């Protein structure tokens, strides 16, 4: 770039000639990332979603610190706060059991602190949501690029495989698989094993969704001139796929990852709700909802709080994902 001309402040008003002369920043090229960021910055709703996500992640990381401030541990029983006959939190009204020590009340029956269980539950939800998405995106991107680049029988094979995956009753398979894994396996045990199993199941069953998208994008990228140029310079398949095409696939990968995370968080919550997810006493939002079922008339807040936690998290990711798609995909407007 030529260095900016030394023009006095007042000269900026004379526009067309200045632009033609290459003065000022107006003519500077913008990368796709910059354009997307400019568009995203104007999308207040998507930004709000992003802020909520950042706050949630920070809160999940700082869970031990935050619960030390309020004084509640997620596994301590406070049976003195629970009505022994109805096993609901002591006190009157909808917000019975809410106090400064227990900002979101206590669990029916056991009296464990709901606020800290929500925070620690966020760790589980976000961890599984992110890791499972990583697994899906890794498998899906690899399969999609390979299918789209090579075409022919490779494409047919991978496409049929994706069709087969989409034809499986996924929730049933996931339930069955999560149910048959014993408590100690593959050298892991306890909730480390449960998290690994859930990440694998959720990630492995969802890769065809992103695989299809990447395959379609690769098919159109393959016909572009820069790929021809790379090939004519002697680049082989692996170089073209991962050095030339992959950077051009960054936008759809980013968008669909952001939209897959909430789906995976919902999937984890559903598995935990049905009793094959994380094992107690480790808190999980889905399990909290399942625990709330017998108490929904006497302690409604215990149902509402984890439900809202799932809702806010999933909605925030969906808002950000929609915003990213609008910002990165020029055709989507």
């Amino acid at each position: 770039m030529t260095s900016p001309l030394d023009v006095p402040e007042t000269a900026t008003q004379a526009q067309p000639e200045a632009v033609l002369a290459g003065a000022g920043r107006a003519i500077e090229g913008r990368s796709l990332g910059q354009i997307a960021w400019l568009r995203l910055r104007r999308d207040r709703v998507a930004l709000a979603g992003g802020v909520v996500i950042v706050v949630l992640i920070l809160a999940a990381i700082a869970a031990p610190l935050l619960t030390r401030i309020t004084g509640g541990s997620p596994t301590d029983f406070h049976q003195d706060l629970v009505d022994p006959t109805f096993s609901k939190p002591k006190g009157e009204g909808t917000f019975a059991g809410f106090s400064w020590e227990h900002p979101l009340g206590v669990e029916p029956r056991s009296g464990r602190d709901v606020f800290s269980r929500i925070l620690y539950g966020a760790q589980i939800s976000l961890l599984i949501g992110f890791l499972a998405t990583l697994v899906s995106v890794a498998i899906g991107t690899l399969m999609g690029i390979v299918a789209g680049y090579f075409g022919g029988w490779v494409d047919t094979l991978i496409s049929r495989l994706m069709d087969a995956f989409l034809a499986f009753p996924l929730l049933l398979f996931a339930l069955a698989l999560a149910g048959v894994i014993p408590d100690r396996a593959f050298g892991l045990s306890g909730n480390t094993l449960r998290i690994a199993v859930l990440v694998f199941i959720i990630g492995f069953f969802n890769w065809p969704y992103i695989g299809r998208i990447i395959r379609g994008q690769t098919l159109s990228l393959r016909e572009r001139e820069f790929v021809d140029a790379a090939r004519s310079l002697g680049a082989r398949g692996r170089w073209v796929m991962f050095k030339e095409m992959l950077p051009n696939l960054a936008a759809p990968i980013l968008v669909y990852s952001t939209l897959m995370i909430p789906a995976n968080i919902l999937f984890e919550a559903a598995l935990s709700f049905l009793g094959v997810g994380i094992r107690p006493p480790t808190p999980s939002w889905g399990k909290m909802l399942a625990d709330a079922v017998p108490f929904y008339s006497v302690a409604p807040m215990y149902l509402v709080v984890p439900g809202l936690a799932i809702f806010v998290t999933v909605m925030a990711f969906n808002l950000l994902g929609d915003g990213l798609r609008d910002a990165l995909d020029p055709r989507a407007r």
Partner: protein
Amino acid sequence: MAGFVIRRALGAVLLLVVTSMVTFAIFFVVPRLAGQTVDQLAAQYVGKDPSQAEIEATKVKLGLDQPITVQYGRFVKGIVAGREYSFGPSTEYCPPPCFGYSFKTQRPVWPDLVDRMEVTASLAFGASVLWLLAGVSIGVLSALRKGSFFDRAAMITALAGVSLPIFFTGLLSLALFLPTGVSYVSITDDPLAWAKNLLLPWITLAFLYAALYARLTRAGMLETMGEDYIRTARAKGLPERIVVTRHALRATLTPILTVFGLDIGLLLGGAVLTESTFSLPGIGRYAIDAINNNDLPQVLGVTMLAAFFIVVANLIVDLLYAVADPRVRLS
């Protein structure tokens, strides 16, 4: 056309075979890899503190002593041709499609599944009418008034709808409107009580899907309204109503109906979350109970049934598409 139908049908059968293999592998191969022995598996079906002799006897009775290929062969033969089971002195013939007898309750699997089909089908069809009407009409109105207050309110509601887990909305609606819970009444016994009891599950399920369909319809409609042939239709002086209904809506609805067919297929194989939220005794509830009991014949049966519905729905959608859309090549 006949060749196309046959090829697609063969593909569907192949897919079912693969599904049965994968399900079989989940129960017979994955636990072995994870370190569970056949004896431990058999011990689950004996009772408390089983003796080694009892375990051996159970293994023989359930066929778990055979190699997995033999077990799989028997399973497939039962579905296609039926099989005979010997219970001590007497033999029982189990007609096709035979999914065997439950390891836990010794009841035959298939008749139980047929009994529960009515609940799941009632739930799926009732809800689908609601969500198709609501989702498509809201989507079309939103697209036609893009950017209006109605559009924004509808799309925020739709996004909230897809972000709410169905077990939460279900439990919430139960707590608010029907704290006593839902009890299923057969449509043949009392159609009015049937509809009254299913109303809440229908609305809850339809809310989720209507949100999805409204988003899909709006996006599809916006894309179609920008096509050249819409401009042509307007240019030749057609009234806007005709342009929207005959030209735009028709093109938008084809992909929506594809998704609809697949969703119905998926739901008929068990609306697992909805049924367990509302305690409806359908296929999905059966699946959960089977999985929690680790009852292999029941799980195999319900998974195969679910896969069957998905595959058949796929097949029907494909064939209808080929008939409706002249661009689909049959070769």
